[in-house]
């Protein structure tokens, strides 16, 4: 009997992962550019963000690309410097929330029992409030400052990840290969680290990406109501507040707003693309 013939029509194609293709690539590149700008800005900043460099309230011109504000500072420069506020703040908030949330969620989901019930009740209570309000309340209570705003946002955000991780852990825990690992006597911590967590991180990644943008929005909102960064700090939300008092000099509020829009949009887009690509894999198509 002859051997089975080779499968026909099989082509080996190397393709970039879906979230790096096409329009998502634009999002990734733009995020990358913002990060680079934020990191390197002190080396090449067109002007000083805090010092007046010319006449006040000039509309956009060749010298001041986005005009100057009420104190004569260059709006474009200040907008760029805003990235050095928002991006690190969001990074700290997201990373901290993910870490705290992962620990709490994994422990809660894996060990179950009364610990699970108590922790999840706490999560439920925290998540019953609109994030803005809770963050405002905490920040106001602690005293308005950037540091307290960051703390408040972490406190508001970690329950989301706790809940997410917990449901992932509960689902994965019941899968067969985890049960067989338990059967051969692997320690619970080992199972948690090696089996359960690596399989749970996908939705975390998707959420963290989208949430990055949400935190940028929240930071700006807090500053807008006077609870986060305060003048003369070139934070986008604070700059928009200045723009309100000089309503007819539209460029003062326009520039930081556009910056926020671009950053948040890029992260939202990337998060969506990530979710689409992981989703397809999950369905096994």
């Amino acid at each position, binding site marked *: 009997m002859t051997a089975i013939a080779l499968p026909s029509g099989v082509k080996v194609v190397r393709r970039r992962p879906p979230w790096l293709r096409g329009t998502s690539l634009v999002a990734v590149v733009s995020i990358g550019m913002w990060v680079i700008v934020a990191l390197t800005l002190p080396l090449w900043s067109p002007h000083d963000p805090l010092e007046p460099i010319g006449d006040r309230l000039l509309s956009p011109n060749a010298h001041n690309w986005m005009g100057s504000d009420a104190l004569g500072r260059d709006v474009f420069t200040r907008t760029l410097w805003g990235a050095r506020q928002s991006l690190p703040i969001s990074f700290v908030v997201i990373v901290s929330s993910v870490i705290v949330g992962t620990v709490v969620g994994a422990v809660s989901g894996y060990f179950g029992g009364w610990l699970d019930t108590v922790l999840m009740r706490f999560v439920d209570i925290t998540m*019953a409030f609109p994030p803005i*309000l809770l963050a405002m309340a905490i920040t106001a209570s602690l005293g308005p400052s950037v540091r307290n705003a960051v703390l408040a946002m972490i406190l508001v955000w970690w329950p989301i990840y706790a809940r997410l991780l917990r449901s992932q852990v509960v689902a994965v825990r019941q899968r067969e290969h985890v049960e067989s690992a338990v059967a051969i006597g692997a320690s619970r911590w080992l199972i948690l680290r090696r089996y359960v967590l690596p399989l749970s991180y996908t939705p975390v990644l998707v959420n963290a990406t989208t949430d990055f943008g949400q935190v940028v929005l929240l930071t700006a909102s807090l500053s807008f*109501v006077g609870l986060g960064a305060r003048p003369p700090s070139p934070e986008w939300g604070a700059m928009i507040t200045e723009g309100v008092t000089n309503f007819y000099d539209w460029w003062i509020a326009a520039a930081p707003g556009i910056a926020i*829009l671009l950053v948040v*949009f890029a992260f939202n887009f990337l998060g*969506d693309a990530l979710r689409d690509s992981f989703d397809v894999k999950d369905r096994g198509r």
Partner: protein
Amino acid sequence: MPLLLAGIATLVFVISRLTPADPLVSIVGERNLNNPEVVAAAKAQWGLDQSVFVQYVKYMKNLLHGDMGTSFTTRQPVTSDLLDRLPATLELVICALILGVSVGVSLGILAARHRGSIIDGIARFFALLGASLPAFWAGLVLLYVFYAQLGWLPGPGRLDTRDTPPSRITGFYTVDSLLHGDISTFGNAVRHLILPATVLGLGVVGIVTRLVRASLLDEFSLEYVRVARAMGLRERTVVNNHALRNALLPTITIVAFTFAFLITGAVLTETVFSWPGVGNYAVEASRRLDYPAIIGVTILGGIAFLLTNLVSDVAYAFADPRIRLS
């Protein structure tokens, strides 16, 4: 459920006590520190000279009577302040929801039916845009364009400054003016609603479009849709009578969820449009560190969430015959 309410109240209490400053200051305000009567009354009511635990008990007792303390910016009981301002916010939120949901559902259907095409891309782009806009900034931009420059729409506030609001029946300017037969005030109120409702609605559109699109696509992959097509039903019938009814079920939950968030999330929009609602109250309270007011609004947010959860569960059970009849 009551446990959750208690938990909410407790959390807010803890937050309010986080302040490094003397709680006495926050309750009575700095100016009154020298007034021994006020101080004594506060101490009695809130148990400030006793342990934290006693204070907590008194706080909960006060809450059960609907007493959330006195705002020291308005000098009124917080509870009445909130009740005063609630209709304004509700009016805005309801309009925003109606706007956002109708646009969102339509866009979602459009995107799902033409999946992969350029229409899908555009619809998703707008949805994403709505979710990325800082609400307060969008409000400013719209005000600038439509009010300052084009003059098509009125500026901040619920009515033109020289108009008097209709005497209060529901607190909704639109409803009240209709009930009084005052058409011009009605028109005025509506025109003032357009911009802020649009701004709030943008965020809703973002969420709803994505959800409807995803739910519809999920339904499309289900067997009964294939069967319906095999039976020769028009695509439009398949979408509207079959897939949509199923896809809208999770939308009910999300809309309820959004409603709760909008109640106090309207914070920023109200600020920009000088809308005298709960959100504006919250912002003023935050700026002035008016702790009783902050506490009050936060508790309100929690209650709103619980209530809408309840309503959405009921609505969902009603809409899904599988649950209704079991």
